[in-house]
């Protein structure tokens, strides 16, 4: 199983869900809500994060390969957030700009940041940062 990667320092919660079929999408959604709850996100923001994670899992599942969705707390200075990520090896060689435009158009309203880390293998990373209005 792959390990989570992030441009930020990672902190608990550290959770992962192996996604092999459509039933696992529900588990991704459930696990994301729980991870977001542990960090203190409000129910509405848990719903946003759960939708983002489930959508990412669905997108990756459509490629026909089993994969792992990672859920990690992340820290950037005084900010804390929840990172949702998944390795996406089939994106090697695809324009990062095109991928990011497609992802932002589908999920840009759900999270603050959507990133594509290239090395050593492509990983889609989505983050929502916690603030007073989201607790």
């Amino acid at each position, binding site marked *: 199983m792959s390990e989570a990667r992030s441009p930020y320092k990672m902190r608990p919660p550290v959770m992962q869900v192996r996604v092999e079929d459509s039933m696992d999408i*529900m588990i991704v959604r459930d696990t994301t809500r729980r991870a977001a709850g542990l960090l203190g996100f409000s*129910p*509405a923001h848990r*719903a*946003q994060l759960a*939708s983002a994670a489930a*959508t990412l899992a669905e997108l990756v599942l459509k490629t026909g390969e089993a994969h792992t969705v990672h859920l990690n707390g992340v820290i950037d200075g005084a900010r804390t957030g929840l990172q949702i990520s998944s390795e996406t090896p089939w994106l090697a060689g695809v324009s990062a700009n095109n991928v990011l435009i497609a992802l932002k158009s589908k999920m840009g*309203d*759900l999270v603050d940041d959507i990133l594509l880390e290239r090395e050593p293998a492509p990983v889609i990373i989505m983050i929502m940062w916690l603030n007073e209005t989201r607790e």
Partner: protein
Amino acid sequence: MALEVLLVEDSKTQAQQIKETLESVGLRVRIAYDGPDGLREAIANPPALIVLDVKLPTMDGFQVCRRLKRNPATQDIPVIMLTEKAGPKATMSGLRAGADDYIPKDIFASEHLIDTLQELGILED
């Protein structure tokens, strides 16, 4: 006295299942089977919480939620949308309409509903 929940759900089978979940944690449940009826019930006798389906006849759950949140008599009542529409657009439509949570109707729905009731202070932990 138990807090009262207004459940707006057009499917009688699903309404019964959700009612049982809510009653199992000590809440009283009133049911409205369409949007206009739900709005009338909420205004006439404001409940502690509204659980709202999205797919409703006459007026969908997003419209109902927006009207509830615009009306001073109902705007402070927490609304949880419980729905089969789980995609990003529907989720954002529900939250932008003013819902306090947006829960897909899947195998975890009851657990998420109860978690949220605790989070909103409707139930004690």
